[in-house]
């Protein structure tokens, strides 16, 4: 994110301590009363001035959720979450959607500036032109949708995008301006009843991004949503919907941070992607929620449902994720490969340090003929971190000629951490080909010494070796994002050696 290209430096210069995004901002907030019941769902819907069909949809989700049990199958441990002891709505008090950036609370603009994300377009362009040691030529600006706690505060480059017929706005805005699209696709990939946290999200989601790329359009810039949890208490329940019409192409980036707090906060998001014939969606995430302290106090519970449907022939959905933050990550970005010759990809780096736990992976559902999927997962465990890759490759009898390649590599740093690989393969098609490779390794003493002899500190050496281990995944990220991710990997492992 060139908008975020200098994030690390910018943030390092304003904060101290292991987690460098741990500041909070003083902004007046409006909260819904604590707890969750039908009235809260109605309150949220009313606050957002939603049409009746959406309120109905939320209430149905809430009814489903009430009958569901918290999932226990993931290899993560946490005390039971009291869903009545949380806020489900928090918004800056002047949440009247600002008409222009000049109306945005200056404190908010400052927060994003601290994170290195200028929300003024001219600032973004200036930032891009002046950035880094590579020439600015040919670099694309990035359009940013900034979501602060529950509310989208700003979306940049809207006008430029509208010229191509591209819609990029908050989902709340889309509900009002493009109800036909939202109504048709919302919940069409992740239904309300999909799982406990998806049902919860469907009932109480507050904001998120909406993207529509029209037929045959190649989105001229990277689209990006930046999530920031700031308020004390509430969870973040955002909902993102991306539609790529036939022959279109879009690359979407997602970044996130949260302040350092002692209590756990819940992040239960849902992301739905739909790709029609010949469309391509590339979805990249650099997740850096507050991971909790070294003893495991505080941190975000990141329980997220992400799924894409390759509905059209030759469509392609590619997930790339770099998961460095959160106390617990529970996340399986998946692809439903319906269209013939459609392609699903999952590239993942997950780091767990100190007491962090990650149970992450993907599901690839091969339904169309000649569908292809590639899974590359790199898990890094340090400290007392626990890292599980959980994956499912399901090939239906009709998926003639389907192919999957899975590679799962684990890297252990120290002897108190754990790495686990749980790959499920369900192949019901004779002509399909499924390959699985897995390795587990440690950073060797001779590698560390070699680097240190050349002048690197032990931490720099670990950072370099870990980045090497993750190279196949990092190279899938858009360039500026990759630079940020590399630094983040090194920072996340601080204190894991020596």
């Amino acid at each position: 994110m060139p908008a975020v290209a200098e994030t690390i430096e910018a943030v390092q210069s304003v904060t101290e301590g292991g987690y460098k995004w741990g500041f909070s901002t003083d902004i007046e907030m409006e909260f819904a009363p604590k707890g969750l019941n039908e009235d809260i769902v109605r309150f949220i819907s009313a606050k957002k001035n939603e049409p009746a069909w959406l309120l109905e949809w939320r209430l149905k989700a809430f009814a489903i959720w009430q009958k569901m049990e918290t999932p226990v199958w993931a290899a993560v441990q946490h005390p039971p979450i009291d869903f009545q002891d949380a806020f489900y709505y928090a918004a800056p008090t002047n949440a009247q959607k600002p008409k222009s950036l000049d109306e945005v609370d200056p404190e908010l603009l400052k927060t994003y500036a601290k994170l290195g994300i200028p929300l003024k377009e001219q600032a973004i362009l200036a930032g891009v032109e002046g950035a880094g040691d590579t020439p600015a030529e040919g670099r694309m600006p990035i359009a940013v949708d900034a979501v602060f706690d529950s509310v989208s505060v700003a979306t940049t480059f809207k006008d430029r995008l509208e010229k191509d017929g591209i819609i990029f706005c908050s989902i709340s805005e889309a509900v009002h301006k493009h109800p036909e699209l939202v109504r048709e696709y919302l919940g069409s990939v992740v239904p309300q009843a999909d799982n406990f946290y998806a049902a919860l999200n469907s009932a109480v989601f507050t904001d998120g991004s909406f993207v529509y790329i029209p037929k045959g359009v190649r989105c001229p810039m990277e689209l990006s949503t930046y999530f920031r949890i700031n308020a004390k208490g509430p969870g973040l329940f955002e909902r993102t919907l991306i539609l790529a019409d036939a022959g279109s192409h879009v690359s979407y980036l997602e970044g996130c941070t949260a302040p350092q707090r002692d209590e756990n906060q819940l992040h239960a998001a849902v992301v739905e992607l739909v790709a029609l014939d010949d469309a391509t969606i590339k979805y990249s995430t650099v997740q850096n929620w507050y991971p909790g302290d070294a003893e495991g106090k505080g941190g975000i519970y990141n329980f997220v449902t992400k799924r894409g449907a390759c509905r059209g022939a030759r469509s392609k959905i590619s997930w790339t994720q770099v998961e460095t933050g959160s106390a617990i990550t529970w996340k399986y970005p998946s692809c439903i490969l319906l269209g013939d010759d459609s392609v699903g990809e999952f590239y993942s780096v997950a780091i767990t340090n100190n007491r962090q736990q990650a149970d992450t992976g993907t599901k690839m559902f091969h339904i169309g003929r000649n569908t292809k999927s590639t899974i590359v997962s790199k898990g890094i465990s340090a400290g007392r971190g626990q890292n599980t890759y959980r994956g499912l490759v399901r090939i239906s009898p009709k998926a003639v000629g389907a192919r999957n390649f899975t590679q799962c590599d684990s890297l252990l740093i120290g002897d108190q951490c754990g790495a686990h690989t749980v790959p499920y393969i369900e192949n019901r098609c004779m002509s399909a080909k499924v390959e699985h490779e897995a390795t587990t390794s440690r950073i060797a003493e001779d590698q560390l010494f070699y680097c240190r002899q050349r002048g690197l500190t032990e931490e720099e050496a670990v950072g370099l070796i870990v980045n090497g281990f993750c190279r196949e995944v990092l190279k899938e990220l858009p360039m500026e994002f990759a630079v940020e991710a590399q630094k983040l990997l090194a920072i996340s492992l601080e204190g894991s050696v020596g």
Partner: protein
Amino acid sequence: MLKIEGLTAEIDGKTILNGIDLELPTGEVHAIMGPNGSGKSTLSYVLSGREGYEVTGGSVTFNGIDILAMEPEERAATGLFLAFQYPVELPGVGNANFLRTALNAQRRARGEPEVDAMQFLKLARAKMKALNMPEDMLKRGVNVGFSGGEKKRNDVLQMALLEPKLAILDETDSGLDIDALKIVADGVNALRGPAFSALVITHYQRLLNYIVPDRVHVLMGGRITRSGGPELAHELEAQGYGQAAA
């Protein structure tokens, strides 16, 4: 000046170095020869600070500074370089990235300005040309899939870029073909000067035809048993350690 006095060291409780005394004046190149297992690599690791090599006695100073108290990276920043007997592979870490990271880490530690990507590339290309290395080696993972000789040459490239004050070359000639041997020797000779010194560990007199040493030492059983001029290497070559070293 590198000054080693009464240095003893052990690995896993087993004494390997039995009291080494050696003086390497600044500007000189000394060769160390000795049978397999005599402690040559151990000496190089002790000097560069590898974990697990425990110093049990004696002292080592470089230009008057006690280097045994320093971390390996601090020793590197003061100008100590070790060309490894077995250079290590770093999968996925690009050679260029590694070299630039190392160069800048050392420059930072010395309070010098870092070199940017463009400057570095120019520098690296010039050095590679001198070492007759193909440029695509910059893009490959550090030593990954390199042939034995290529790994050695890659270490010498690192040395050429880092411009150390004290280089320890541990059997850098082993596994090199005749042309590569000359190229590597040229690389070392190019650094020779009043501010550079080197310890060249080798089994073969042949290398010393190209890198002519000021002194030759014989290391046996963890001790320097004999020292002499370049002619000592010829004597060893002709008679073996059994006769010549004692």
